[in-house]
């Protein structure tokens, strides 16, 4: 088996006496999509933030394409430039228009010329039906459009891994659908992704594997079908029945 694109080994993270990640090990092969599910506070977001080094870890190791990115001598800016991240709250830059938002990292981090960066961005926006929004400011876009722009901003630099942290949680159902369609398309193009989500139907559609997290541990993992149809642990059974009661499953 070849080296995984991303490998997390025995990761441990606590805030003071609060243990949020407890001996987490995951490997993500190239082109693989893994979906993290679990209640809020189960550690999904912390795991994603630890992977792109926005969060320090207590113990363990994270390897990106075989290189230990948690080593002391590593420059975190260089690592983050190779990992795409999208957040629940979009976090587009409100003082920059869509085109400027998307071209900032290619120009300033990857040294692409302005013309080339803009040509790439326009082509990308065109492909996803957002070309007419290029000169607009984020505040004037719908939530779904903002989040799609945020995803394009993260993938324009061709990251080795794309991390999506509950990217549809702030959106209403119609907007969720357009964002999920974009993510499915990225999967079709072979993007390696780790996705934290509460959308079980979506998990079923894109996940090569689903990981269920509870109190900082991976309690169960398997295909979406296994996880959703035949949960083995009481934690997962409780989680799924709570979702069912809330009409989310």
């Amino acid at each position: 088996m070849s080296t995984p694109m991303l490998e997390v080994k025995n990761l441990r993270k606590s805030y003071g006496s609060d243990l949020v990640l407890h001996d987490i090990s995951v490997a993500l092969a190239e082109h693989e999509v893994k979906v993290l599910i679990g209640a809020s506070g189960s550690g999904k977001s912390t795991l994603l933030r630890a992977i792109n080094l926005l969060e320090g870890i207590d113990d363990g190791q994270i390897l990106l394409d075989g290189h230990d990115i948690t080593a002391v001598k590593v420059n975190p800016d260089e690592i983050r430039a190779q990992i795409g991240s999208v957040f629940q709250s979009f976090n587009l830059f409100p003082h920059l228009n869509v085109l400027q938002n998307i071209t900032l990292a290619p120009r300033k981090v990857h040294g692409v010329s302005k013309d080339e960066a803009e040509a790439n961005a326009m082509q990308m926006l065109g492909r996803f039906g957002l070309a007419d929004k290029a000169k607009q400011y984020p505040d004037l876009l719908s939530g779904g459009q903002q989040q799609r722009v945020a995803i394009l901003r993260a993938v324009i630099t061709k990251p080795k891994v794309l991390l999506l942290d509950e990217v549809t949680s702030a959106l209403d159902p119609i907007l969720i659908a357009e964002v999920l369609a974009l993510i499915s398309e990225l999967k079709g193009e072979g993007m390696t992704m780790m996705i934290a989500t509460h959308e079980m139907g979506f998990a079923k559609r894109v996940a090569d594997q689903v990981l269920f997290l509870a109190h900082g541990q991976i309690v169960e993992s398997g295909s979406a079908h296994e996880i959703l149809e035949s949960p083995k642990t009481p934690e997962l059974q409780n989680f799924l029945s709570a979702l069912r009661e809330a009409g989310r499953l």
Partner: protein
Amino acid sequence: MTYQPSPLRLQREAARRRVSRQSTIVALISTLAIASVLAIVVTGAPGFKLVRQSFFSWHYAVSAFPHVLSGLWLNLRVMVIAEIFVLILGLLIALARTSHSPILYPIRLMATIYTDVFRGLPLLLVLFLVGLGVPGLQISWITNSAVVLGTTSLVLTYSAYVAEVIRAGIEAVNPAQRMAGRALGLTQSQTQSYVVLPQALRKVAPPLLNDLVSLQKDSGLISVLGAIDAIRSAGIETAQSFNFTPYVVAGALFVALTIPLTRFTDWLTRKQDRARVQQGQW
């Protein structure tokens, strides 16, 4: 079919017009009443004639005007130069105070002490200390020009205020914005200059301009060091005639000079408020 306003709508609109007409009339009457009371109190005062003669004499106003105006040219130059330096120095101090790099610790400490001291010191005292104290040191290569030292005092004092305003703006930018910048691979300083600062300066533009208006008016204080500005020119005229009208002329000119900037500040604030209401963030 064309839209016919319902009688209900017409009735409502007529009532609104009635209320608005009434408001206008009330405002008019109240303004007139207060203006007449003021006029009666002031013009009826026993010393009114004397005050009018010594502060509002047309004759002295006309004769002092050219001198005061030429003094104002100095104020104008001082305020423009001081504003440029204040914005640069204020920005640098704000950046120093909000940095987290350990190598900048001594600079951060100095910046903190600086803003504490110069926001507390009365400007007049700074003018005396710098304008009279520095030449007193008798260092040959340091100028003893009242204009230069006076401008320096203004810059020292106002940079402290402006630095705090900019710092407040930097800290008001949502931390998630900084995180998003870092997540894209931007370095700390790239995030600061492309993501945080542009948003911070937009947020604090109105209070920043307000400080500059205040600086413009305080440029008249350099006259205490003997610089021949508008205030000093008015003083010279007054010393010859024992009539205070030249000071009033200087005051009117200062007001005229600051009005464009105050109007601009108001306009900018209103524009930002409107944008916020449109985005539903009010």
